């Protein structure tokens, strides 16, 4: 019992928020604080980790090798942004303005890359362009050891994000303004630049911020596709910890990552704030393409989408089927069955915990802006950084199941919280009032009215949380015991033995994992998708993208 009578909402949010707050504090903020301390004071003591040379806060900038890592990480993120915008804007325009058979399907398929685990995507890119890849064989080009593999992988994930944001943003453009510009004599080109572009630019910029964030803090793709030269800072941190045990240097790098990603996240938050809720506008009507040029534009757009977003997935399926029945049979050995079981039970437990945390957080954050912002925290921090911080802070808990699952849950629960927050915002208040007026207790109103209304939002959030847990890779690599191998870590292991048969096995496993992620997603999300899609604003589309990437 609280000694003083607090206003109802405060009391509620305090109690509801207690659990998520503790989770964030213990599993995110404290480890980051430990990391900052380690990076700042050089306070990392581990027997056996022989000190090499002095490192300081400035060493990533003084050392040529580390500077190259940081600069390349920034550069590849920047290049991906430019490419994603250059390709994504025309694609979005075509999808937003033309009406054609299968348009809804294409829009829905744009979500597909989001449920593909990063590791699987990396394998898909390798299956296409890697050594002995499908396309590199036909075309006789070898992209291995070039930056293109990583950039292609980045685009696979992020092009869809930009296109999705672009399509939604273009749907908010006021048809009357464009019509007015045109009737005043503006060419379509001029009308685009003077009317449409200014109104969609903020949406695109905000999605590009996210693209930058993901690419910069990317781990899985860079680990597999970057090779020795084009790996990112996150991969360097992982190598320093797992292979070289240079915790001091790793924590300095992690500190810089935190600073840089924090800055980008701040820019993103500022941009988001400027994006007011869209007013009701009359959208520009979609027309079927007519004339050679418009059909060509449509075909070209679909072609580009196919090559970048569908081909890697198809390549994996093709390679997995090509591996032959024998591989499929042998692949299901005890080790794989164990990994499958681990993946399923870790994901289920993490999903349960994430749902609990997410629901509590969303309810607590109903009227509190800082709380809403707090749900973004796990997105901003890269999984590698979190895992490393946990490792430093709780050495006696490393390789313990509760810590691993808690880390999974903290990384996954913001999906539930964000989705539910959006759902709470759109709750019609009069229904709740009616229930209370008719004599339902607050508890009864919650269980019988609020919760059923929130079900679609909850499902969506859980779907993304489930996909996150299934695809989790970075934290597992850091905190897991070897015998707790999940499908992702097993794929990575098989990839480390690239004899032809191991590669085939990795492809089959990747196919399996992709199916699993898709299945979980469909099971939880599909029934809710239909009536949710219609009420989605661009902001939520971008946020959905954010979910999927983490």
């Amino acid at each position, binding site marked *: 019992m609280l000694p003083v009578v607090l206003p109802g909402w405060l009391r509620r949010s305090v109690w509801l928020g207690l659990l998520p707050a503790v989770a964030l504090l213990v599993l995110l903020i404290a480890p980051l604080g430990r990391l900052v301390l380690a990076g700042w004071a050089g306070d990392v003591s581990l*027997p056996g980790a022989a000190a*090499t040379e002095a490192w300081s806060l400035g060493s990533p900038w003084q050392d040529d*090798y580390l500077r190259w890592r940081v600069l390349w990480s920034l550069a590849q993120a920047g290049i991906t942004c430019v490419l994603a915008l250059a390709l994504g804007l025309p694609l979005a325009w075509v999808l937003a303005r033309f009406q054609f058979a299968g348009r809804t399907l294409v829009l829905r398929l744009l979500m597909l890359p989001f449920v593909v685990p990063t590791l699987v995507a990396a394998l898909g890119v390798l299956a296409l362009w890697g050594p002995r890849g499908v396309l590199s064989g036909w075309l006789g080009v070898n992209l291995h050891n070039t930056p293109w593999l990583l950039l292609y992988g980045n685009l696979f994930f992020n092009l869809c994000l930009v296109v999705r944001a672009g399509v939604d943003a273009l749907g908010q453009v006021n048809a009357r303004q464009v019509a007015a510009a045109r009737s005043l004599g503006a060419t379509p080109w001029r009308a685009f630049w003077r009317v449409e572009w200014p109104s969609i630019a903020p949406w695109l910029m905000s999605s590009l911020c996210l693209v930058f964030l993901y690419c910069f803090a990317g781990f899985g793709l860079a680990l597999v596709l970057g090779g020795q030269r084009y790996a990112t800072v996150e991969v360097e941190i992982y190598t320093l910890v797992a292979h070289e045990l240079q915790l001091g240097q790793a924590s300095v790098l992690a500190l810089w990552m935190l600073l840089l990603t924090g800055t980008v996240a701040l820019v993103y938050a500022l941009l988001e704030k400027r994006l007011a809720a869209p007013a009701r506008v009359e959208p520009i009507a979609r027309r079927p393409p007519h004339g050679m040029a418009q059909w060509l534009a449509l075909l070209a757009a679909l072609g580009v989408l196919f090559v970048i977003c569908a081909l890697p997935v198809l390549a994996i399926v093709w390679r997995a089927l090509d591996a032959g029945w024998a591989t499929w049979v042998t692949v299901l050995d005890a080790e794989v069955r164990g990994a499958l079981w681990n993946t399923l039970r870790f994901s289920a437990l993490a999903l349960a915990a994430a749902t609990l945390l997410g629901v509590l957080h969303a309810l607590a954050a109903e009227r509190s802006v800082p709380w809403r912002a707090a749900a973004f925290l796990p997105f901003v921090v890269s999984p590698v950084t979190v895992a490393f911080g946990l490792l430093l802070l709780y050495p*006696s808990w*490393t390789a313990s199941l509760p810590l691993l699952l808690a880390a999974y849950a903290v990384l996954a629960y913001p999906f539930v919280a964000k989705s539910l927050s959006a759902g709470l915002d759109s709750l019609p208040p009069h229904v709740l009032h009616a229930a209370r007026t008719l004599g339902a207790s607050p508890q009864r109103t919650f269980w019988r009215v609020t919760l059923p209304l929130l079900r679609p939002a909850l499902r969506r959030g859980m779907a993304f949380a489930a996909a996150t847990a299934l695809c989790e890779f970075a934290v597992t690599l850091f905190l897991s015991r070897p015998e707790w191998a999940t499908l992702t870590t097993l794929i990575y292991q098989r990839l480390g033995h690239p004899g032809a048969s191991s590669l085939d096995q990795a492809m089959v496993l990747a196919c399996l994992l992709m199916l699993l992620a898709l299945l979980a997603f469909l099971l939880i999300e599909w029934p809710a998708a239909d009536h949710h899609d219609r009420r989605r604003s661009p902001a939520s589309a971008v946020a959905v993208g954010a979910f999927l990437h983490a």
Partner: protein
Amino acid sequence: MNRRLFTLAATALAAFSLSTQARAADELRVMVHSSFSLPKPLLAQFEAQNGIRLAIIKGGDAGEMLNKLILTRAQPIADVVFGIDNTLVGKALAAGVLEPALPQTADAPDANLGAALAAVDYGFVTLNYDKAAVAKSGISLPKTLQDLTLPAYKNWLVTPNPATSSTGYAFMLATISAMGEEPAFAWWAQMRGNGLKVVKGWSEAYYTDFARNKGAYPLVVSYATSPAAEVFYSKEKTPESPTASLNLKGGVFRQVEGVGLVKGGGQRAVALKFVDFLRSAPVQEALQTAMWMYPVQAKTPLAEVMRHAAEPTEFEAPATQVVAGKGAQWVARWTKVVLK
């Protein structure tokens, strides 16, 4: 309804997964590196004789495996560890992850592993070449490591990164041990200029970039036994190996792998039996064609196929104390010289 079902399922799953969590009392946890392999019947026999179940935990590359033991030493993840070699033993001892002394290792040969580990096998990290690729190039093989820096051998050698691969690490130690630190790093710098390719691990170097496996590099840092393995695994009956070792001065490292008890681990009695088991005649014989190492017990008969793998007579084997003291610095310096 939905809610109740969900709660029920979650609770059941939680209970079930936590119950499988509890470690069986009749289980011996053996940490090994990713190249560990022994015939299943042998392991099954050990299990039957000792009434125990073996949980073989693969911890990645040997260096990575040791780091895992160090990072988790507060809650040891294994009872026994196999695969710590003469390049890593110093680090393992300094980190205190091994029981300092095994009771009965008096008969260990010149293994150079100290009291905490019992030697099990040894092998040689050395260069391998693809006979077909070398013949096709029309250039004779290099006679010294210095030859490899000549323009004729540009883009010939692929090596695993010493920071992430114990094979690469051993090769780097051999060059430093033979040439001395400064000349060795000067050589590495020249090699970098001559198109040296660096990859993450041995398997990537051997299976992706080595000319034998459709890669572009005629020379690879590998093992003296690899040519025998080529014959052993080849589908057609090949009278001779398509590859061979190229033992150059300063390019051969003798690696001795041992088994030891993890500090804080359990099952001591059975763990010691497992140590003996790895050094017993059947395992010593089997490991040759399972892990492609030489048996440490001299009386073990050599596998027939091993005649394709000549044992190098000259090799480097630097003192473990020196390696433990300077290894990390050397890796850092190597990264700077070759990769930066």
